[in-house]
């Protein structure tokens, strides 16, 4: 067996015509495989990038129920089902958020996720603070940063009041680069007035 291999190597070394033809055919084989490889890889990359959508594509208006269930001056927990959901999501299709009814039809709807690392913040009405159980981020009632590691205030959802129904624009996990909607600066400038009059 090894003798045959050695003999073949011997031939390829000596005969220039055989060498060039064999190498040409090998190169052809590599070329064909490279072309097929690219043709197969492109759909695979597109498939893998499936979850990546353009900004806002995941968002749609979601109802949080009648506005009457949110008393003025209070902050209450509300839960909605994510618009983009599958039957096998189970409970994880649910998304909680904090609804603060400032007055009348002026609301603030905060994401549950701490702006630091996404843990669920809890509202303490007695001290008027949101506190995070993970790394101690604390926010004031209007969502602005009070203390701890977060570098900004709570994420806010865009909202509107449709008839008697409170709706928010939601659909993705709020993080620093996939914000629910960064309206905090606007709110500060307008002294608590909601950005969309409903």
């Amino acid at each position, binding site marked *: 067996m090894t003798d045959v291999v050695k003999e073949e190597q011997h031939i390829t070394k000596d005969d220039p015509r055989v060498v060039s033809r064999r190498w040409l055919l090998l190169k052809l084989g590599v070329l064909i495989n490279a072309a097929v490889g690219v043709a197969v890889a492109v759909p695979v990359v597109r498939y893998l990038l499936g*979850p990546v959508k353009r*900004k806002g594509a995941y968002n749609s208006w979601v109802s949080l129920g009648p506005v009457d269930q949110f008393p003025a001056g209070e902050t209450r927990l509300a839960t909605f089902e994510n618009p983009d959901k599958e039957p096998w999501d189970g409970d994880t299709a649910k998304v*909680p958020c904090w609804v603060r009814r400032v007055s009348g039809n002026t609301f603030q709807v905060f994401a549950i996720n701490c702006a630091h690392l996404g*843990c669920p913040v809890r509202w303490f009405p007695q001290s008027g603070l949101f506190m995070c159980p993970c790394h101690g981020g604390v926010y004031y*009632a209007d969502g602005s940063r009070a203390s701890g*590691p977060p570098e900004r205030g709570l994420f806010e959802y865009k909202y509107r009041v449709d008839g008697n129904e409170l709706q928010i624009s939601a659909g993705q*996990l709020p993080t620093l680069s996939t914000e629910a909607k960064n309206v905090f600066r606007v709110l500060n400038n307008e002294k608590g007035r909601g950005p969309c009059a409903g």
Partner: protein
Amino acid sequence: MRWLKQVYNWFELRLQLEGPVGDAVLHPVPRNTASWWYVFGSAAFTLLMLQVVTGILLAIVYVPSAANAWNNLQMLNHDLPLGWFLRGMHFWGSNFMVAVVLIHMAQVFLFGAYKFPRELTWIIGVFLLLMTLGMAFTGQVMRFDQDAYWGLGIGASIMSRVPLIGGPLVHLLLGGPIIAGATLSRFFALHVFVIPGILLLCVAVHVWMVLKLGINEWPMPGRPVRRSTYIAEYHKLSHQDGLPFFPGAFWKDLIFSGAVLAAVAVCAAVFGPYGPTGVPDPAIIQTVPKPDFYFLWLYAVLAYLPPSLETPFILTVPLLTIAALVALPFLAGEGEKSWHRRPVAVLLLATIAVSFAVFTHLGTYTPWSPLMDAWSSDTVPEKFLHQLSPLERQGAVVFQAKQCRNCHSLDHVGGERGPALDDVATRLTEDQLIRQVLQGGGNMPAYGKNLSPSETTALVKFLVTLHPPGQKPATNAAGPPTAALSPPAANR
């Protein structure tokens, strides 16, 4: 017995394994490497095999569906005969594996085994460590409980800090817009196919190189590694004063691996499997998410970073650490191997080990987090209420009701986010207390909007009573003593 020999020969003629296997097990190793210090690599390998076997056994039952995984694990724990034991073996096996891999790495570093010609063995080892940690994190997700759910949130939040492509990265990580079914499916694929596949391949290369290059000799002071002479020196050492790996050194590996497996089984039998903790319903927000022990140090570091440093730290430090580990054998590929002649290496290792231990310990009791139920569950200790005026007692009520206790402890009970207040009056005057409460400062939120003037007065009157009996409260050195304005305070 002749037929046995015939069967053996039938296979050997076709497989031809006798030569390479014989070379591998009988290759000579330096006599002094047959030491108990050299058993961690083989133990890590044994644990990997255990994880593969127990992992497959769990996979034949596990349902990687966000809607069902949690119930499925409950069934494994409670209904399936010895399902709890298999889960326990896999969980404790993972803990032991992370620990043994880290010890193996520390030992290799301390013994200078990463030096020429074993640089590539070390580099592959660095990636093996990363993949082991990757298996640990994705494995934690398989539990699909509250910790897994919010742990994924932490992972997504870290990803989101990458500039420009942060958003797409979050969606790629989660397999969609939120943590849900698609997330578990892709982490399942990572945990059982992708990472183990690469891991086993890298282990094969790692072990191949150990066999080809030989086990690192015992480091001796004054015997530095030189590229020009090392291979000949090692050959002399292993052939003239060596012994065959099997059984010379192998018996120690065998006994240690057996002991580690037994320890995993004992832990699984005594402590059982871990979790699943709470059901992964995001609407249940009364949860305190925590990672498994191997990521507690990271959890602690993330709590202590100043906000402005956090993103730069998260984006650069892991990459720099990996780069430093990969660069190590190129920067220090020659020279002394013995720890007697490498004080910087020893100090570095000791510093890293102590930091790791301290941060992990802090991660177990998270002093940086408010204690969410301290205000309602821990009453003001009675000794702080003796002989107080009604106003001061009212202040104690305000103190509890406004959740001050979540961050401040009294008599060692309560949160540790802020300072303990047992003797706050010795540190701050009444005026300073009022200012601190209303305006906040340091890490404290301002309470100006959430306290009425009467509540503030009562609260501060209570706070100025908090000092040890024999010690006077703080006074304003610049102005008139505030004690004159306060009611007799030192009356506890």
